[in-house]
């Protein structure tokens, strides 16, 4: 990957005083997003940490419009807004969903699939911080294997892997889906710009740092995010009409425990007797990466 050339926010579109925790992914991801999308944007927000961060009535953290909607149906609310704007000739107004992993993987999954199937002209941002953080760290289907949450405590840590949301979303044959990391800002910004100019359903899933939920020092938010990419726990890739492209190949092999170790939610895995779980996560990361490489090769060959 080229050295960072484009990582500065040129025009700030987020007011100061946002209500996020220190080191929260929402704060940074929204600043970059809003600065690129501009003020002619309507953000649709289901229940999530961002419902709070955006500010209670009558506040709005972002320069632009914000519509808070029901948990299960942000893509449907956005569909209504999009069609209404299209009728009014406002094709240039961006309609963007800002959802967490609960609103994306779980309760909002059907509405997401519906909107993706219809290829609605919507831009979906999923901040995947791996649990219901707004309600206090409960397990979602995005919660990683091995993590403890308040509903998977202690020895009952999560023993299933998150669903392959990107694979499922990509299988809707939408024009654009991508993963992004806040440790790779220039990649994230490029993806926002690319998605902005595509018509149809677009989704970017960000690996959202959450210091209270992941039990990470807020100062380590970005470095832990970087380790997730370097250890292949969170690969960066794009899916365009089911064609996979990997955006970043880690230069050296790095075991997953390097990324797990600084996160308190995985602390128990390092106790004697739980090491097999780390090996299980390593196998998952390796297999997932091999699968991605194979998918990239296959889908690019099919294209030719």
């Amino acid at each position: 990957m080229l050295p960072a050339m484009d990582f500065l926010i040129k025009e700030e579109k987020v007011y100061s005083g946002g209500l996020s925790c220190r080191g929260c992914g929402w704060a940074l991801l929204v600043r970059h997003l809003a600065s690129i999308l501009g003020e002619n944007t309507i953000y649709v927000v289901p229940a999530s940490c961002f419902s709070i961060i955006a500010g209670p009535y009558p506040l709005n953290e972002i320069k632009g419009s914000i519509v808070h909607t029901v948990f299960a149906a942000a893509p449907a609310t956005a569909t209504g807004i999009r069609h209404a704007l299209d009728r009014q000739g406002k094709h240039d107004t961006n309609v963007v969903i800002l959802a967490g992993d609960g609103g994306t993987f779980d309760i909002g999954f059907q509405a997401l699939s519906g909107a993706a199937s219809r290829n609605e002209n919507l831009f979906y941002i999923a901040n995947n911080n791996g649990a219901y953080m707004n309600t206090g760290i409960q397990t979602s289907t995005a919660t990683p294997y091995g993590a403890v949450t308040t509903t998977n405590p202690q020895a009952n840590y999560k023993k299933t892997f998150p669903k392959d949301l990107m694979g499922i979303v990509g299988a809707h044959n939408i024009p654009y889906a991508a993963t992004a990391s806040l440790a790779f800002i220039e990649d994230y910004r490029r993806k926002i710009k690319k998605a902005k100019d595509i018509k149809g359903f677009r989704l970017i899933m960000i690996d959202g740092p959450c210091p209270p939920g992941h039990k990470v020092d807020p100062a380590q938010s970005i470095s832990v995010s970087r380790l997730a990419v370097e250890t292949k726990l969170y690969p960066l890739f794009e899916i365009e009409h089911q064609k996979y492209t990997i955006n970043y190949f880690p230069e050296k092999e790095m075991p997953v425990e390097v990324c797990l170790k600084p996160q308190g939610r995985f602390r128990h895995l390092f106790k004697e007797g739980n090491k097999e779980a780390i090996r299980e996560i390593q196998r998952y990361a390796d297999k997932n990466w091999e699968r991605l490489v194979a998918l990239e090769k296959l889908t690019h060959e099919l294209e030719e």
Partner: protein
Amino acid sequence: MNEMNAVKENKIKEFPRHTRKVMKGNFAAAEAAKLAKAGFIPAYPITPQTTIVEELSDKVARGEMDAEYVNMDSEHSVFAAAMGAALAGERVFTATSGQGLFYAHEVLHAIAHFRLPMVVCNVGRPSIPWNIWSDQSDSLAQRDTGWVQFYGESSQEVLDSVIQAYIIAEELDLPVFVVLDAFYQSHTSENVWIPEQSLVDEFLPPKKMKGYEVTGDEPKAVGGLVQPENYGKFNYEYWIDINRVEKLTNEIGKKFGDHFGRYYGAVEAVNIGPHTKMVLVTISSITTTARGVIRQHPDVGLLKLRLVHPFPKQSVLEAIKDLPDDAVFVTIERNFMGDKYGALNQELRRAFYGENNFKLYDVYTGQGGKDVPPITIERIIHRIKNDPQEVVWIDIE
């Protein structure tokens, strides 16, 4: 439709600038949405509503209707999309039934309390035990969501009510249900006078933007967390406007009559006066059956509720002001609210408390679409006259 029934025996009343068509209730509902120029229709099929959205999709496909029609993934999403489009200022229409309405329940609250105008037809059916036939338990169970609810006696009334409902909805920023009976209306053909588009346009102007709409033109924040110090203000504002519905219903019903030739009110009284000993209280198509039956009973009157929520207390009290003190009321319930009394009886008790001392009887009948023919109405009258009990189940005896 008292007026039309009254003249039926002689000749059919003609309405200028209308075309008379034989039409099923669901098609009348779809026609009404077209005449009202609804611009956004999110849709999901459910029996017995399905032909409403099918017909609307046809109208859009045929180019007869300038609307965005979107096949959604569920009723929850239908209402969420309706909410989004209404928020952005479009005139919205859709239709649902039974389980679909129950599934959308969460969003019904959101639409009402975000103060978004729209009109939705519900074709009433119950929930469990599984059943698709006529029953008003679904819509009546949504009473406390804050939606205004009209019940149409005929397909004509459904069509006319949809047009009136848009005026009320957009005047007060409230959503409105117009409820049809499953099959007895939805799938039954009858004469419907279809007004010319220009006649409707004169009555119902295009939707006006009020300034609260989220259109991207200027920054807006909608729906954020409301903290305790402000919460009550929203409900107070809502309360002010929901209290205006009854009066506005009567005003718009009169204006509609002046314009189209068919008059409506929140309620309709038939044969209610000093000579009346019993008043049957009905909604929807059972009303028509009761109209015929009470002709044989000079001492039995009929109180039809067209507006059911908010309950039109003043209109009801006005309609019954000449009743003798010993008259009794019989609410006919094609609904079951899981309580001793059916929904209409509960509402009537609430309205009468402290106002009068009429004896109220409650009759459950026609549950889950069981036919309520004239003989059943006769039996109800006979039972209450000769062996009255506070609550009677007429169908299962």
